[in-house]
């Protein structure tokens, strides 16, 4: 039976909790309630209140406490109820957790799970993609899986990693994406992108829910004879520069796609690396497609216009392919 993206994360969590008694979960409403999205449903019953810790509404304290526990050898997995609230723990993440190893050789093996992204009519504070607030901080790792396979493999890698990992789960994928997963234990390495579709004419570099938008656009373009390669970054920090550059070397054209807003989004970092490192291979401008520079609007027609879609991606890709 296929496993949903959401179940894949739950399985990853519970398998790691089985494997390592130092792994525990901490967050708001994750125990009795099973989490706002039910990702942790059933885990309190299985593992008890010692390992599934319900907390007050205190994002800074939750992340800070996770950091402290990790310094003592535990492996906390934090749930931020909606990724939007991660901003309340910003200082703890970028200044405390991220900098311990460099400053005083203390590893901080925490995972911070954060359901992010739009498409569920959540409005300005339940739809954001805050990943770029963290991809600028040395010492952090940032992960954003698009498939159930990757979600499970990456949550396991994140838990086993000895540095702080931010794990952005896309809410719109939770129940929409299903796959058959291997029965045996597997991980997906942090720091490795995946070429999810091979193509010749241009590369779309993307991640998260936008992988499906890219695939849809690529299908449409295929019919017009345009062959699109799609790179799913999977890890946003550290970036798998090699895979990105290899794809652009091959296709000579790059379209950078993210759901996060344009200015200051990850597309900038990608464009900089591409334009610096494979400049000679480029046969056209580097094109970015992203959400416009506004808060995420609530009303369905506004939200639909806000989120990048396949029609728009195809249009820009077509332009680029013909360039």
């Amino acid at each position: 039976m296929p496993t949903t993206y959401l179940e894949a994360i739950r399985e990853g969590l519970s398998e790691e909790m089985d494997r390592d008694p130092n792994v525990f979960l901490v967050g708001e409403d994750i125990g009795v309630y099973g989490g706002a999205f039910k990702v942790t449903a059933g885990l309190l019953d299985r593992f008890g209140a010692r390992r599934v810790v319900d907390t007050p509404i205190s994002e800074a304290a939750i992340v800070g406490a996770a950091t402290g526990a990790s310094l003592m050898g535990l492996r906390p997995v934090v749930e931020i109820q909606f990724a939007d609230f991660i901003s309340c723990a910003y200082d703890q993440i970028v200044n405390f957790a991220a900098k311990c190893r460099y400053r005083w050789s203390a590893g901080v093996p925490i995972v911070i799970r954060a359901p992010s992204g739009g498409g569920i009519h959540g409005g300005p504070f339940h739809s954001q993609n805050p990943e770029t607030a963290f991809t600028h901080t040395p010492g952090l790792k940032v992960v954003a899986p698009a498939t159930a396979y990757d979600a499970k493999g990456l949550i396991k890698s994140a838990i086993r990693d000895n540095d702080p990992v931010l794990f952005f789960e896309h809410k719109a994928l939770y129940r929409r994406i299903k796959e058959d997963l291997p029965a045996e234990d597997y991980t997906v390495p942090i720091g490795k992108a995946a070429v999810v579709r091979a193509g010749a004419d241009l590369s779309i570099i993307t991640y998260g829910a936008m992988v499906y938008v890219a695939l849809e656009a690529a299908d449409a373009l295929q019919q017009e004879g345009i062959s699109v390669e799609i790179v799913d970054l999977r890890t946003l920090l550290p970036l798998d520069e090699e895979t990105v550059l290899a794809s652009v070397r091959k296709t000579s054209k790059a379209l950078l796609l993210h759901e996060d807003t344009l200015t200051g989004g990850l597309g900038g970092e990608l464009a900089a690396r591409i334009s610096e490192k494979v400049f000679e291979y480029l046969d056209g401008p580097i094109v970015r497609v992203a959400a416009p520079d506004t808060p995420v609007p609530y009303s369905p027609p506004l939200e639909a216009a806000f989120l990048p879609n396949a029609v728009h991606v195809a249009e820009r890709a077509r332009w680029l392919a013909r360039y």
Partner: protein
Amino acid sequence: MSALAVDAGLQKLAGTSLRYMTLMREVEERIERKLYRQGKIVGGVYVGRGQEAIPVGAGLAVGPDDVVCPSHRDLAIFLMRGVSVGEIFAQYMGRVGGLTRGRDGNMHMGDMRRNIVAIISAMAASVPVAAGCALALKYKGTQNVALVFFGDGATSRGDWHEGVNFAAVQKLPLVLVCNNNQYAYSTPLAKQMACVNVADRGTGYGIPAEIVDGNDVLAVHEAAVRAVAHARAGLGPTLIECKTYRMTGHSAHDAADYVPPGQREEWAGKDPIDRLERKMIELGWASAEEIAGTRAAIREEIDKAVEWAEQSPFPDASGLTDDVYETN
């Protein structure tokens, strides 16, 4: 004032309170039990069923030049400041007729012409902002106050602490109204704080704190009147803890299985609207027929308002990127 005049004043207050409490109840019933289920509201829905006495009792203690910062269960505040029922429905339905013109949903609305500050989702973030409003009122030399609402769970947030402390140190004209409904989402009070009362937190800020029956609108009102007078006199903030109960799930999609059996039923007996109605009938302030009439009129008003809201268009995507900055 003669006892008679006091009585007349109280009777009037009770009448006004009942009207707004009933209006809030009925509007939210329509939202949660009809429009949401019909799919006409697509975002989150949080209602204040059972807690209406808090925004109403406290809200009636201030005037239009005082600033209010409602939280997500204080719909009555908007109604009392003249936001129309149609505008509320339009807001929930993402229409241009809502206060945010579709940009935001549900209780995330405000209007500075009416001195209402819109919340953001992050719990308690409004507390420092309300302190700033109070600072401005004092800066300008007015006698006005700011009134900020929040739940028990919100008091765990750093912003709450910083905002209350800031206001206390600066002796700002701020009234802090807590709806202690004993839950924060699924989290019961005992997992939120180790003190018994939210009011116990006042001591640490050197401000007075009061506990009131949050299901008794007149009691809430009295406490708020005292706190407002304290603030207007330049004596600084007061914390009012209103003991109440959330008579719904956290939001419309929450079945609240985590609530112990019988708890909600017990509190149903303390419904603030029923209580006020009974009292008014007992004291001869209103007849059962009058009360029923008011409710019927409200339902009619609501029917019309829903119609109005449904006629309000969805925002046009062409305006998507407007108003991020001021444009001249």
